[in-house]
């Protein structure tokens, strides 16, 4: 079954800045893969429960005790930009 993809919207949601050629290329590749994957849509699975995870576990409880943490400077040393003890990023909002 043909699959219709708004690839520009998907790329925006995924935060990957693609140009028009790249969007067209990825869009047609995804259509081929999704047409193969869409075969499972024809299966009657109304009575089947979904499985999200192979282990029948709900939660992993532990005592709430302080543990060791990573060294802050060692962590921040890996950041592309920092200001004191903070990660530094460009503005979230555009100037009006």
């Amino acid at each position, binding site marked *: 079954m043909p699959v219709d993809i708004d690839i520009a919207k998907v790329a925006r949601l995924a*935060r990957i800045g693609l140009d028009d050629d790249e969007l067209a290329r990825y869009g047609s*590749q995804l259509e081929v893969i999704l047409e193969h994957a869409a075969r499972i849509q024809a299966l009657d699975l109304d009575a*089947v429960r979904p499985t999200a995870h192979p282990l029948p*576990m709900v939660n*992993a409880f532990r005592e709430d005790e302080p543990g060791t943490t990573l060294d802050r400077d060692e962590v921040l040393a890996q950041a592309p930009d920092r200001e004191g003890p903070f990660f530094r990023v460009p503005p979230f909002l555009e100037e009006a």
Partner: protein
Amino acid sequence: MTDPADLTIAGAAAALRAGSLTAAGLLEAVRRRAAMTEAHLHAYLTLDAAGAERAAAAADDAFRRGEDLGPLQGIPIALKDNMVTRGVETTAASRILAGYLPPYDATVVARLRAAGAVITGKTNLDEFAMGSSTENSAYGPTRNPWDPERVPGGSSGGAAAAVAAGSALGALGSDTGGSIRQPASLCGVVGMKPTYGLVSRFGLIAFASSLDQIGPLARTVDDAVVLFEAIAGHDPRDATSYRGAVPDVRPSLDDGVDGLRVGVIRELSGDGIDPEVLAGFRAAVERLAGAGAEVVDLSLPSMDHALSAYYLIAPAECSANLARFDGVRYGPRLEGDTVERMMAATRRDGFGPEVARRILLGTYALSAGYYDAFYGQAQKVRTLVIEDFRRAYEQADVLVTPTSPTTAFHLGERTGDPLTMYLSDICTIPTNLAGDPGISLPIGLDGGGLPIGLQVLAPALGEAVMFRVARAVEALGGFEARPALATSEGAA
């Protein structure tokens, strides 16, 4: 005398204790081998010469003091470069992590160090473990030691090539849809994926968290057991870590297959499998029958849909996991006047085409309006796969299949067609969906001299019977061939 680089882990461990070999001498032999083979193979992204020397010296010191940390003390082991190593560059073969020096060790790395292992370095992979040929590495492909014109498989291709070539005695890889077993098959070594949850994922750079599992690559089943025993066990830092006891696999390892029921999956041992691979597989099954196994023919209809389900579930999980690579906390950053434009530019530049493709695919499959039709339906197929395996294990103690539908293919042969590349994993993917263990081991060579692999599957926590059957296949098969590039003559 055997070059120490060609010893098994068990053989080297014996020589270290007999005093005929030192950890420093063993490391030197492995480095000599790497110096000969790396120009052809590119199995490693990073060789940690200084760290390995320190670890080998520490292992020798401990031996001199009479301390015995067990069978990995002084043994050179390679790590797939998606396991973090404190202070040693870890990139997952992606540009988006170029230069990253992790501030901590993965749990498996800490366990290997505590066992006295000598970590040689970080091996190449398909970027973020997404691929079946190691051609998706941002730092160039790894080649197959049996034929450098061919791929080593993937995504743990560097690890498999290093073990086959002798630039490590064993390695750790990760397996999300076959990424340990398929390269092991294509490189003629043993590769094992443990039951989901038995080995901690803490410090494994996540691809698809409900499928990822770390496991060993080695030259013999026995060596794979040694590595499995070193890394398995509960870890409070992995919320999905199994809390029960690790299966005790040693006592029954050499019990053979007499009286065991070995199931052959019809859907994975016919159409779509190369005739020579199939012939090798059938011959191995006949050897098992000759040794007393009862061979059972089984149909698991859901196998035909497992690949489709996997290529929705794995990209969906990957699209969420890889959201963390955004140019804020680590890795390179491209400029942008807003944080969103900075992230979009950084991610466009940092991710290779296969990773971008899967992020886009997963984002689509999870997006409003498509979730039920794609991701939801795939989760239901996952249930069918689990139920099929459960029924199969009522009739058989283990299941066997060819590991890979073909032997090693040429570089470039499948890169233009993602779907054909995905079919490389058709035999290995169902096990990951079920969370069960599986092991691949070499059973012979095809007409072109390339290794053929057989896979033994078992129910969750069934490692004992899985290793036992693998050990029997190995003993009955007598596969001892080594690639020409693993010998000094071949590499000269």
